[in-house]
């Protein structure tokens, strides 16, 4: 890999900050990482002697486990902190917690936090590389990257794809990271979901706001469902689960509007029977389980490339 190829930054805060060539560098590297995963011996030494800490202030199974495995497959030592078991439960601030971990010679700090912009706030204040594992409703960059990886892997290209994203767009960092990524790569993004969960100014981003799921799915190469948090119903954003299912669930009828080769995607975890029926999750065109596998490969690639940047900077090849 040439020196120009890769990531040109200490932290991965969001897709918004990435250039197109950096996105492709991650996707290309992830392909090699997936080969590692598929080989008999998943243990490499690319990050030997490095430490990775996951700092999660929200519940997570797959993202946290995915980063944890990615770190282990690369040979790093990893640790985990969450709000319930850490000093933040005693009122310690996010910054104090992060600085404390930073002073334990941590190389990578993987943060999930309920406040948009939290990793952006921390990154300049710690020496560790900060990786955003989801901040509020802002970004979830590794999710978008694994989605891109999966689309390219299955469809053979990214440029010109039509992607329908269905559900609660307002509160979705997955929707935003995918929007920025897909737009950078020349895709057409179409959103559908209840008007109460659709940002009022979404079309100013260049996305298309559709009035029905069918309209969004029309001719789509990818139909992506988003997890709907059922507590949004009690918050009054939609009247009932049955009504949501009636109008916004991804069904065979919806898929009939999409391209014949269209992929079914979902970031998980899925509310079976709400965003889509179990039969759709397990549909022959569903790539939901592969997304999980690809997530590990993409996160390995991100760690690998950020580590290269750190090494180069340490050697003085780059100015800090």
């Amino acid at each position, binding site marked *: 890999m040439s020196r120009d190829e890769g990531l040109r930054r200490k932290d991965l805060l969001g897709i918004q900050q990435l250039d197109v060539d950096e996105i492709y560098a991650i996707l290309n590297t992830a392909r090699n990482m997936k080969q590692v995963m598929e080989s008999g011996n998943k243990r490499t030494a690319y990050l030997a002697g490095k430490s990775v800490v996951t700092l999660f202030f929200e519940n997570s199974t797959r993202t946290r486990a995915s980063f944890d495995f990615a770190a282990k497959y690369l040979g790093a030592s990893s640790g985990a902190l969450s709000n319930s078991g850490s000093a933040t439960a005693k009122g310690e601030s996010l910054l104090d917690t992060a600085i404390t971990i930073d002073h334990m010679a941590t190389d990578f700090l993987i943060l999930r936090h309920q406040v948009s*912009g939290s990793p952006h706030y921390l990154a300049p204040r710690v020496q560790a590389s900060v990786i955003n594992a989801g901040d*509020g409703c802002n970004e979830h960059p590794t999710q978008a990257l694994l989605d891109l990886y999966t689309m390219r892997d299955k469809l053979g290209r990214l440029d010109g794809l039509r992607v329908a994203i269905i559900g609660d767009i307002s509160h979705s960092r997955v929707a935003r990271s995918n929007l920025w990524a897909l737009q950078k790569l020349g895709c057409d993004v179409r959103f559908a979901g209840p008007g109460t969960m659709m*940002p*009022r100014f979404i079309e*100013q981003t260049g996305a298309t706001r559709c009035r029905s799921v069918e309209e969004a799915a029309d001719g789509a190469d990818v139909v992506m469902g988003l997890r709907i948090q059922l507590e949004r119903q009690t918050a009054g954003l939609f009247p009932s689960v049955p009504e949501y299912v009636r109008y916004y669930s991804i069904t065979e009828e919806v898929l009939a509007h999409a391209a014949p080769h269209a992929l079914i995607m979902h970031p998980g975890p899925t509310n079976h029977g709400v965003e889509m029926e179990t039969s759709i999750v397990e549909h022959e065109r569903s790539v939901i389980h592969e997304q999980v596998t690809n997530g590990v490969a993409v996160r390995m690639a991100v760690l690998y490339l950020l580590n290269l940047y750190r090494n180069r900077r340490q050697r003085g090849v780059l100015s800090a």
Partner: protein
Amino acid sequence: MNLIITNAKIVHPRPLGAAHTKPELGTIYVVDGAFATCEGALAAGLVTADGTPREGTAVVDATGLYALPGLIDAHTHLRDPGQEYKETIATGTRAAARGGFTSVLCMPNTKPVIDNAAVVRYVIDKARREAAVNVFPIGAVTKGQKGVEIAEIGLMQEAGAVAVSDDGVPVSTAAMLQRALLYAADFGIPVIDHCEDLSLAAGGVMNEGLNSTVMGVQGIPSAAEDIIVARDIELAGYLGLSIHLAHISTAGAVAMIRQAKARGIQVTCETCPHYFTLTDDHCLGFNTLARVNPPLRRPEDVAAIIEGLVDGTIDMIATDHAPHHDDEKDIEFAHALNGMTGLETAWQLAWTRLVLPGYLEIGDLARLMSRAPSERFGLGRGGFEPGRPADLILVDPEREVTVDRFKMLSRSHNSPYHGMTLQSDVVRTYVGGREVYRG
């Protein structure tokens, strides 16, 4: 306190719609802390019969400087009592003096709330001991600003409160506002409202728009302000009573207030320098210094605010000086507190943003930042008429200032203008003829 200021270009507040005037060179006489005529100065022995200052009279040569009536801020948070770690009466009024403000009206959302005569007297007594400029307390409309029971407005006024407001939150309901307007009217004390529909604004941290969408944070729609502006206008019109609307920030509010004035409704309002200077673009990158309530809006709102200042829809410029500790600002965006300091940059921003581009002339600033608040709140200041307290400032229009938020006199550093270069600065501030700031 006696004083003579010579060679100043004297700026009188320009009444709305009056002919354009050029400030004229002249001499300002101060006798016993009040403005005086030349004859008055002669009678008091400051000058000889031919007008020459006598030996021993303090004389300031203001060649090249403008003299204006001291600025009056209708909207300051001094944080005292209860939040002295953000600001005190001593530090806040020194910031005011540095910014050219000779009087500040301080908001009642302190701890405890200024909602009774005892707290009003506390502020006035403390100000008498340690303030650099005049402090006029604003009392709460409702006890504890909780919007449930009307506060002791009469007793607060008797103790020295010049207005009432639940600032920080709107007066809770239309019914409560009606009660407040009816009750306050007999005391002749102005009611100020903070216009924000809390149900629409709940959870919002910046203006709702493309930027809030891109940042993935909850927005505050401009309609949240407009709806309460509409409520307040209609109520004031129905009752035939006056109301003052604080910190107007939206194009919609400006349009409604313009229309209300044309209908003869007694509504006055203020805006703040940040609403004619900054947009929600300043929030990008999760910049907590740009968090303020009402939030920074869009360029079209900024244009409407300037238009409202030009045509007189907006009556005055106030700062909404809202100091916060670094720990309350150097934090995650959604957790940061709303507000920005403003006393030390308001003049420079008004000049740079409004006078330099030709929207307003200096006499308009004397009206918007001095005469109008004085008249609205009955302060008897805001002009050079003999007998008025000699509150004035000298301004150098050529001096450039690069804002350094860490070198301000306020106890807090939360200025969003850090690093900006602004034109024009206050070089002297006098309260009752006594110099309280020299820059």
